[in-house]
C-alpha cells in the first residue's frame, strides 16, 4: 500500500511539473517564463508553513499529553523539513524577485515574514542541539515551538500592515494582484496538494529513520 502511494505521489508531482511548463498559461505582466516559478515557490512556502503548524500540534500533544517520544520526534522532524522547504521557498522567491524587480531582496513584507520563520526553525533546532537529556530536550523544545506558534501570527499579520506604511512605494507581492486563469489555479492547487503530500511522505520516512537512530543510541 505504501509503495502504491509513493508511486502515486511521484506521478502526481511529475504531472504538476509537466502541467506547470506545458499546460498552464503564462501570467500577465511577468517577464518571459518566470511566472512558472509560482507553481513551486508558493506550494513550498505553504508546505513549510503547514510543517510549522504540525510541529506545534505535535509539541502540544507531547507536552500536555503522555510525553510520548514519538510526538517529540515528529515535531522535530517537521521543523527540520519546514526549514528545508522554507529555504527553498525563500531562494525561489529571491530568484523570482531578481527576474521581476531586479534585486534578490526587496524587504517585501512576505520575504521578511518567511525569513523570521526560518529564524524560528533555526532557533528551535539550536535549542535541541544544546540539551543532552532526552526528556528535558523534548520538554523545552516543545514549549518553544508553542511559544513560536502564538507569536508568528503577529509576524504574518502585522508585518504587511505596518511595513506597507513605511515604504513610500510598497512592493506589491504578485500573488495578491495576479488574476489567475482557471488552468493556472488548477496547476497551483495541484502543486499545493503535491508538495504537502511530499512533505508528509518525507516526514514519515525521516521519523522512521530517526526512530532507528534513537533505538540504536539507547543500546
Amino acid at each position, binding site marked *: 500500500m505504501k509503495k502504491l502511494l509513493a508511486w502515486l505521489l511521484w506521478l502526481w508531482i511529475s504531472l504538476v511539473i509537466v502541467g506547470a511548463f506545458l499546460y498552464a498559461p503564462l501570467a500577465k505582466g511577468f517577464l518571459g517564463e518566470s511566472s512558472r516559478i509560482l507553481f513551486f515557490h508558493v506550494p513550498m512556502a505553504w508546505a513549510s508553513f503547514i510543517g510549522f503548524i504540525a510541529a506545534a500540534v505535535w509539541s502540544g500533544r507531547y507536552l500536555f499529553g503522555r*510525553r510520548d517520544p514519538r510526538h517529540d520526534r515528529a515535531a522535530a522532524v517537521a521543523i527540520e523539513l519546514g526549514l528545508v522547504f522554507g529555504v527553498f521557498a525563500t531562494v525561489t522567491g529571491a530568484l523570482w524577485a531578481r527576474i521581476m524587480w531586479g534585486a534578490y531582496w526587496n524587504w517585501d513584507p512576505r520575504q521578511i515574514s518567511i525569513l523570521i520563520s526560518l529564524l524560528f526553525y533555526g532557533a528551535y533546532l539550536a535549542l535541541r542541539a544544546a540539551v*543532552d*537529556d*532526552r*526528556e528535558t530536550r523534548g520538554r523545552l523544545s516543545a514549549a518553544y515551538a508553542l511559544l513560536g506558534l502564538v507569536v508568528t501570527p503577529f509576524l504574518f499579520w502585522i508585518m504587511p500592515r505596518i511595513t506597507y506604511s513605511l515604504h513610500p512605494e510598497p512592493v506589491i507581492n504578485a500573488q495578491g494582484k495576479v488574476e489567475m486563469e482557471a488552468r493556472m489555479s488548477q496547476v497551483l492547487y495541484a502543486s499545493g496538494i503535491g508538495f504537502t503530500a511530499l512533505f508528509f511522505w518525507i516526514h514519515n520516512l525521516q521519523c522512521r529513520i530517526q526512530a532507528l537512530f534513537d533505538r540504536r*543510541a*539507547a*543500546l
Partner: protein
Amino acid sequence: MPGVPTHLRFENLCRRFGRLSVLKGVSGAVAPGGMLLVTGPNGSGKSTLLRCLSGLLAADSGTIEYREEEGQLDASERRLRVGVVAPDLAFYAELTVAENLEFFSRLRRVSPARGFAVLERLGLPADRLGGTLSSGMRQRLRWAWALLHSPRLLLLDEPFQNFDAAGERTARELLAEHLAAGGLAVVANPSSLDFDHAAEHLDLGG
C-alpha cells in the same frame, strides 16, 4: 492513623541517560514510621532514584504512588511536600542562613520556627552568609531546610555527609524522631548505616 495511612510505593522505575541505563526496574514501598535504606556503589542509581521519588526527575517508565491523609498526591504536589537532603542542594550565597530559611518558609507558606529550631539543635549561627559556610555547615542548613515544613516523607541522599560526630548524632536523633512520629523516610547511602530501628533494605547492586 485516620483514613488511609500515608504510604509510598514505587514500581518498576526505569531511567536512562543517553546510552546509560541507570535505573532498571526498581521497586519498593515505605509504610508510616518506616525507613527504606537504599545502598549500592557509586553510579548504581541511588541519587537518581531519590530524584525520581522527589519529582525532580521524571522516570522513563514505572509508577510512583504517594498517599497522605487527604489522598493520593500527583508528582507536582509530591514535589512540594517532601523534605529533601541531597549533596547538590544549594542555597543563596548572598543571603544569610536566616534570610534563606525565611525566604523558603514564605514560599512554603509556613512559619520559619521549625527550621530555626532545627538550626539551633544542629548548632548553626543564623547570621552567616550562605557563601561563607563550610561544607559541614551547609549540610546543617540542608537539614533545617528539609524539616522546615514538617514533611511526612523525607528523602535523604547521603544525609550525614560532611557532618562531624555531634552533627551526625543530632541528625540521627532528628530522623528517629521523624520516624517515631509516623513519618516515612527513604535514605540513600553508599554503605549500610547502623540504625537503631529496623529498616527495609534496597540494594541497587552495581
